[in-house]
């Protein structure tokens, strides 16, 4: 039976009529029209549906929308501020951290969580952090470079990171 859920998404309160079985990924896309969150595998493997729940990266295909009530949800649409891309979005653009772009929103949301925990991750730490995000264009090299560049920007350092 449908019920009204009230979700805090990208700082705004949104409501939707959903069944308890509705997955957060579907409600974001189909009810709230936030189609930046992608659905790849629907089996918590690929990470394309990653969003932030109270600042932590979560696969929204493995969370019920009703579970998200009372949480702060951030999707890829919520990262830019006043028309300025988030440093990770900017870095994915500049470093060409994508080919087809399907995995990109999830990659970026996971990287937001990583950089909040670790402002200067090594290449190994970045690769471990994005282990739950699949890029089937095999473009990981530039994704790692983009996350390193964004980390440097967020630290206020020069974008080129010294080799470690």
């Amino acid at each position, binding site marked *: *039976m449908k019920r009204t859920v009230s979700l805090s998404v990208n700082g705004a309160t949104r409501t939707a009529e959903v*069944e*308890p*079985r509705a*997955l957060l990924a*579907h409600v974001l896309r189909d009810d709230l029209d936030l189609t930046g969150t992608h659905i790849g595998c*629907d*089996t*918590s*493997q690929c*990470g394309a549906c*990653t969003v932030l*729940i109270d600042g*932590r*990266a*979560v*696969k929204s295909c*493995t*969370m*019920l929308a*009703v*579970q998200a*009530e*009372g949480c702060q949800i951030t999707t890829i649409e919520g990262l830019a501020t006043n028309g300025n891309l988030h440093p990770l979005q900017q870095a994915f653009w500049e470093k060409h951290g994508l080919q087809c772009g399907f995995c990109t929103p999830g990659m970026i949301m*996971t990287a937001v*969580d*990583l950089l909040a925990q670790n402002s200067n991750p090594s290449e190994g730490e970045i690769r*471990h*952090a*994005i*282990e*739950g*995000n699949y890029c089937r264009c095999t473009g990981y090299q530039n994704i790692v470079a983009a996350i390193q560049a964004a980390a440097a920007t967020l630290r206020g350092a020069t974008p080129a990171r010294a080799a470690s």
Partner: protein
Amino acid sequence: MIPQTFDYVRARNVGDALKALAAKDGTKVIAGGHSLIPLLKFRLAQPARLVDIGHLDELRGVTEVRRGAKIGAATTYRDLLESKLLAERYPIIAEVTSGIGDLQVRNKGTIGGGLAHADPAADMPAVMLALDAQLVLRSKRGKRTVAAREFFQGAFSTAMAEDELLIAIALPPLPRGAGTAYVSFEQAASGYALAGAAAVVKRSRSTVAHCTLAMTGISDRPYLVRAAEQLVGTQGLPDAIEHVAAQAAAGVEVNGDIHAPADYRRHLAVVAARRALQKAFVRSKK
């Protein structure tokens, strides 16, 4: 997409959840949902109702209990990794947890959910056996504690009754100076253990004074290897470790599947056991 409908209720406290379970009307518990939601998608679980305990603060966090620790059942893997108390007293918890799922799964998945799910290839149950963890269960009928070694009763099967809720995991103190290690061979796609070994070794001067070895991924449930006690009294030399490791799957009905036929899995069990014992021995204080 989840093909089957169900009702959902968010518990306001543990008592609320116990009341919902006491109805025995097909209610299942959801915390992080990272074991349950995949089952719902495949119709492998068909509950009439879910009771959500994921947000209950009283079930989350790690607390100091004398020289041991108590972990709330709804504590996420991420919170386990961030616990200084666990890092200090039970470094094997961080060692095993960093390999569970991936960053997103660890952010939402809970230790209690994983244990109650009782996947025979899950990593954490072996560590719980090696640490002699005590699982605290509650129902409207009362409270009881079940040792991890009696909790796992088969594939996806535990000692919990239908109306019981796992509320905490109590870890007794490790023997002083003990070394611990978890070693596993993962199925490449899922990350679940084809064979996993958790070891605890304590030395007293030049000999081994205590040794525990637990295995997962081998059979329908995790188990303790009795032969581990044969390391006690030895100097922990490679031959002695090999003698114990060789018995890691002795007398056990070993699973065989497309990822690892039984003979191969039995071989992996021996190698994982040997490496875990060696690491734990090296990490123990002389």
